[in-house]
């Protein structure tokens, strides 16, 4: 468990997604909700992928969910787990599972959000990245 974790590169923030990453710095995990069809989606977009309305808003997610699928990458300098997590709020998102036993992490496991610092190419303000750990 004490093995070194893979470093996460900084995300390429753009004007459409800047509010997510600003909130992330405060430890808030936001997802997008469409005010026209009321559906939440992932990854966050300005235009709803279900009804294409341009009136979407940021809402805070509970940050809990279950693993939908997971693969442990063995052929890497630091072993890591890539996964899809289905949020209790609805959407399924790609993420990493951290602080887990890589031999046991499995589909169906309950997980909760946690954050990891990112490597900001020398930029001081690189936001943290949303990942999940066993709940």
């Amino acid at each position, binding site marked *: 468990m004490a093995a070194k974790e893979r470093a996460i590169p900084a995300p390429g*923030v753009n004007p459409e997604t800047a509010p997510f990453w600003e909130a992330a710095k405060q430890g808030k995990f936001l997802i997008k909700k469409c005010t026209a069809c009321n559906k939440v*989606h992932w990854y966050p977009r300005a235009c709803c992928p*279900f009804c294409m309305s341009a009136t979407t808003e940021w809402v805070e997610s509970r940050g809990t969910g279950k693993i939908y*699928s997971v693969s442990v990458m063995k052929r*890497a300098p630091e072993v890591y787990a890539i996964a899809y997590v289905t949020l209790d709020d609805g959407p399924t998102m790609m993420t990493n599972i951290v602080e887990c036993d890589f031999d046991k992490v499995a589909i169906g496991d309950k997980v909760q959000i946690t954050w990891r610092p990112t490597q900001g190419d020398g930029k001081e303000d690189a936001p943290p*990245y949303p990942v999940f750990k066993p709940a």
Partner: protein
Amino acid sequence: MSIKGKAYIAGAYEHPTRLAKDKSVAQLHAEAALGALADAGLTKDDVDGYFCAGDAPGLGPIAMVDYMGLTLKHYDSTDVGGCSYIAHVAHAAEAIAMGKCKVALITLAGRPRSEGHSGATPRMRGADAPDTQWEFPLGVATVNAYAMVAARHMYQFGTTAEQLAWVKVAASHHAQYNEHAMLRDVVTVEQVLASPLIATPLHRLDCCVVSDGGGALVVVAPEIARSLKRPLVKVLGAGESIKGQMGGNVDLTYSAGVRSGPAAFAEAGVKPSDIKYASIYDSFTITVVVQLEDIGFCEKGQGGKFVADGNLISGVGKLPWNTDGGGLCNNHPANRGGITKVIEAVRQLRGEAHPKVQVPNCNLALAHGTGGLLGSRHGAATLIMERE
């Protein structure tokens, strides 16, 4: 309007190299083009349409058209990753049916092996792609994206690692007869399972090779096909689609093949049980299992059982598949397996596959592939061809 019978594949050529340290990518494209034109009995001056994808160096088709000295009436650089070239055959047939061109050249080439590529390295697919900031930092490579598909398939349908291994076993049985194949040793299920885990649950031998090389196809109008000396391989039908994460309604159990496959069969007027030979893109063993289900060779969830016990081995099973050894053993030029799928299907329809793997009286064949990542977002293309 349909492309059925409106175009023929007159030329097909797979570059024999698998390691091209001494060649450029443009050179490999041109050598593949020359090979396919010679196979058809045509020259570059006959070409009036050119098709390429993202492996072609430069901006779309511009650099390669200039490099090869072509004079065109039509071009198309649709890029949906590895299956692009299967879609290109359909697009070429559409263009020919519309009278936009008569001799369409499709090329693919690349040298990922010389450049040290690996499917285990996280790969940026466009810095400004809307999904990149949400996925690239997570270390999504190629193999672990497909591995998540395999993990879910196993969880949901009870598919086993042994069943996946049978796909590789079948490919290796075919590759032993292909003098150009990168991996010619026949392997067993046990050997696949004993190979190192790369990204769970996929082993090293569940993964395709990394090879340099290329290939080309020449698609022509019916009157030109009939004027040439090659067997007539007719385009019967095609389908294409794209599938992603559906706004977070992620479902890894199926691909865009559920749309491209049925569309192709409907246009061709045939059904999966009519197909004598199938080329199905084998980037990984799981890719084949999911595609067989999606395009209708078996029920959803039954792909593992379908591929087991040698069912894909020519002369042994019910569905002779990837008789060149596929991407798993033969060749995966430019990290894109689409064109080699069409090339082997053409060989089968002409009766020019290796005698040990040639399907008797092979008059109806399918080539299908996906491009991008089955684990996140991808294109699919299906093509059905008939020997006239």
